[in-house]
């Protein structure tokens, strides 16, 4: 446990330490220090995962918070592994990415980055409600400062503030949940919480729902997802990578921790989680298809994946509440497996999107194209991540979703009418989400990397991004293949945190293990077959290859403007679902005999933002503007307000007594 704290302290100090280093070596030193810190944190986590003995260390803060426990159990260890590995990759990558900001002071940025990592590590280990909230707040604030890296741009600041507002919305609900628990248990320690809830079914439901809203906002569950598509495009790519890959998972950690506190969740709450997650998945992928901003697309796809993970957790909770341990094991392990997978491929997608951005300086995919020729390494990495995020075998994404599907199939057999309908609905939804993901990522990949360049942004690219960026990305690609091919190893890792919720040993998990073994075998056979067919094809074909223009029905003056664009690729699908989003057209038709200018632009607005949040904000602004007169700019009147306030407090307290 000491080495864990050493790691955290190194992280916090490293940010300040690098301020004194020469600019050229800043990030080099930071990545070195972060790697060391990550190793320090990984040692106890691995120890816990292997030995199964929880590590606890207590600090006595006497009157302040009482005894504060930091504990690494299976669940915390699982998250520590993800946080440490992914953050190191982001830091190493950021060296190349930040080179294009040579004239910008990055000191503050480098202070907050390790601070974010340290606070996440503290969040997953802390067992005291108050200290947990403090760490949670540090996490939100440091990520806020990372998001507003390009603070000279107005839209970045706006996105940052919206992020800040959402985070404080979330923390209110978490506070309420913890406050309820600590009032009943007269303690701030998590371990004392669960005993309180045993007799109080109703209280447990309320606490869980409050925590679900609070942590769900952080994770990005619909309808509290709105900050994701704003904050991600604003933030630099390595920050988006770590935020989407790791930070939103702390919200899921919170939900998991509350499940472990609640014990057996009630049926209604489990159904709510399950259904909200399915809606989240569908909503996320639908809006991902509509987006032409690559980072917004990825942000919405994160929402989708949070929905898939939530579906897994929902199945796990249903399994717990119906006392079907196999369903619970499959659900929780599927969800946790997808947490691991998503942190790998989503980080890779954000990083490769960042590489494209450093070369093309645009996030609009309609302006890209043909980059596979100039940026082959990035293209292949993006392709691997896209195949994996579509959950296509034999890569890692498939394993998690397969477990979730199996959980649902086993839930079908529960012989309960309502469960059966919900589970089948879930299977159909997940199938729909899977095929929509294929649509979304074939669109993203093919418009960015294939065909002809659609504008100077991509035709001016001459070389691939530098190797200091390719290297950490390749490591992630290796992880994608590794987890896919050796899913049995990854599964045994994932099964450990599952044992926090369900007694894994009481059920014969051999059948589940053999399935995973089957997937491993599957992956191997598939890849061998692929190699074999390519080999046969090369060996047997003796034919000549001639290179010609693309066939255009006899028309040989095809140009880049005639290619299919991202919007047209998605349009047949989207035209079917028109009521689900607000289309904002910006059209200037060509007029007169010799038209001077014309353009067409179509934006899809988030329906929830357009019809719920924006009117609310407008109403709020109108309401608050009534009090504008109070802000007179006159010091004397401010002192007067203070005086009035004090008098009210004093008089009021007399009455309360």
């Amino acid at each position: 446990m000491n080495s864990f704290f050493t790691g955290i302290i190194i992280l916090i100090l490293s940010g300040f330490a690098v301020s004194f280093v020469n600019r050229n070596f800043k990030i080099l030193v930071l990545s070195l220090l972060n790697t060391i810190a990550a190793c320090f944190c990984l040692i106890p986590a691995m120890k816990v995962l292997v030995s199964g003995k929880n590590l606890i260390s207590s600090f006595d803060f006497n009157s302040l918070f009482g005894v504060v426990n930091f504990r690494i159990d299976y669940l915390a260890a699982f998250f520590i592994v993800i946080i440490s590995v992914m953050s190191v990759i982001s830091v190493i990558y950021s060296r190349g990415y930040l080179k294009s900001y040579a004239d910008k002071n990055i000191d503050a940025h480098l202070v907050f980055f390790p601070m974010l990592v340290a606070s996440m590590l503290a969040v997953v280990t802390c067992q005291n409600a108050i200290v947990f909230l403090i760490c949670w707040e540090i996490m939100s604030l440091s990520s806020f400062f990372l998001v507003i890296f390009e603070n000279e741009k107005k839209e970045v600041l706006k996105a940052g503030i919206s992020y800040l507002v959402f985070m404080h919305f979330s923390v209110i609900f978490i506070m309420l949940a913890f406050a309820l628990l600590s009032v009943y248990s007269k303690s701030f320690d998590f371990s004392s919480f669960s005993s309180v809830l045993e007799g109080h079914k109703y209280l447990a439901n309320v606490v869980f729902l409050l925590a679900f809203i609070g942590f769900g906002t952080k994770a990005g569950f619909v309808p509290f997802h709105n900050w994701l598509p704003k904050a991600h495009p604003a933030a630099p790519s390595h920050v988006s990578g770590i935020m989407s890959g790791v930070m939103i998972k702390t919200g899921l950690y919170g939900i998991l921790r509350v499940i472990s506190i609640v014990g057996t969740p009630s049926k209604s709450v489990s159904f709510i989680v399950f259904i909200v997650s399915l809606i989240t998945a569908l909503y996320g992928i639908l809006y991902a298809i509509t987006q032409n901003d690559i980072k917004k697309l990825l942000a919405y796809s994160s929402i989708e994946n949070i929905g898939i993970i939530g579906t897994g957790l929902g199945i796990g909770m249903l399994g717990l509440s119906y006392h079907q341990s196999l369903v619970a094991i499959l659900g929780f392990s599927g969800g946790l497996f997808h947490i691991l997978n998503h942190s790998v491929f989503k980080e890779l997608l954000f990083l490769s999107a960042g590489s494209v951005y450093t070369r093309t300086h645009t996030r609009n995919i309609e302006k890209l194209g043909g980059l596979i020729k100039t940026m082959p390494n990035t293209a292949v990495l993006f392709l691997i991540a896209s195949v994996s995020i579509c959950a296509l075998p034999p890569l890692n994404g498939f394993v998690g979703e397969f477990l979730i599907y199996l959980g649902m199939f086993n839930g079908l057999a529960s012989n309960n009418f309502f469960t059966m309908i919900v589970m089948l609905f879930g299977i159909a939804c997940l199938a729909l989400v899977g095929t929509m993901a294929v649509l979304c990522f074939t669109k993203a990949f093919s418009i960015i990397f294939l065909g002809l360049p659609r504008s100077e942004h991509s035709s001016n690219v001459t070389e691939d991004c530098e190797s200091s960026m390719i290297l950490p990305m390749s490591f992630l690609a290796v992880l994608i293949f590794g987890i896919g091919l050796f899913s049995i190893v990854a599964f045994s890792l994932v099964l450990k945190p599952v044992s926090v919720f369900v007694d894994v040993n009481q059920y014969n998990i051999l059948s589940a293990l053999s399935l995973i073994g089957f997937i491993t075998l599957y992956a191997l056979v598939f890849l061998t077959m692929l190699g074999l067919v390519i080999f046969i094809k090369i060996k047997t074909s003796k034919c000549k290859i001639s290179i010609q223009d693309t066939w255009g029905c006899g028309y040989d003056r095809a140009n880049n403007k005639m290619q299919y664009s991202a919007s047209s690729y998605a349009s047949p699908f989207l035209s079917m679902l028109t009521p689900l989003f607000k289309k904002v057209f910006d059209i200037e038709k060509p007029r007169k005999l010799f038209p001077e200018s014309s353009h067409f632009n179509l934006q899809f607005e988030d329906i929830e933002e357009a019809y719920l949040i924006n009117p609310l904000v407008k109403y709020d602004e109108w309401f608050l503007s009534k009090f504008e007169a109070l802000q007179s700019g006159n010091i004397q009147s401010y002192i007067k307000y203070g005086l009035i306030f004090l008098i009210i407090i004093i008089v009021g307290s007399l009455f309360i007594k």
Partner: protein
Amino acid sequence: MILRLIADIIILLFAPFLMAGLIKKTKAFWGGRKGPSVFQPLYDFIKLWKKDYVISKTTSGVFRIAPVVMIVSVLFASMFIPLASGSSVVSVAGGLIVFAYTLSIGKFFALISAMDTGSSFEGMGASREACFTSIVEPAFFITVGSIMALSGNYTFDSLREIFANAGHYGILIAIFAVVVLFLMILIEGSRVPVDDPATHLELTMIHEVMILDNSGSDLALYTWANGIKMLLISSLIAFIIIPAGLNEWVNVLAYLGVMALISVIIGTVESGMARIRMSHVFEFIFIMSSLALVVFALVTAKMFGG
């Protein structure tokens, strides 16, 4: 075992082409023509395999590797489906998911390879294909999933147990399931009324237009893969229809008979129907979805209605 495997391999090698030939023959019959030999698609395949390539200069490695991934994915998916011998090579719980997702790999690469050419025709085909599949798959999952729920067995074997588990309801469930799967053949195999494999270079095409720029053995692999895909879904129909417990060779004969029957029906449908307007294809696909929900309703009625 070995014999069965060999039978399956022979079927995978030849049946897709023979089915395509039979469909053409049926269409010729209804059109009052003599038509080409049933073996013509096979000859075409062999001829294409030997031909030289023309590839577009816009394309990249994705374009070259896609047909290979496509054929590997359908061949691999065929291991999860019971073919002529009546049992699949791999029978695993959740085989449905593995089967569907394996097919998706091939589809993913076919889509990006079409986009790789930078041609507006192929982009259009890819966009339609991606769109239609996304509605077909949930319906397929609902149909097979509810049949699996009926028997509590999550392998494809449950398709064969419909009659044993559902009694009188079984007949209805089987009929609707067969219709759903048949519609799926029409959509996935890109047949009339969804797509027209006979026309070339029409703005209304889906699958054919995606492979406009492929030639030589790449094109051969695509036609074979598409044939196998149709064969696999037809095999599911055969698996529902053919009763269990037959002698192995009788089973093979029955299987071949069902395949021939399905080809003739497809040919007849193609002769008797016009292609649907592109904007109405959705409605056609939603027929399939609603029939899938009927299967589900029947299954729940059987399980909870007494």
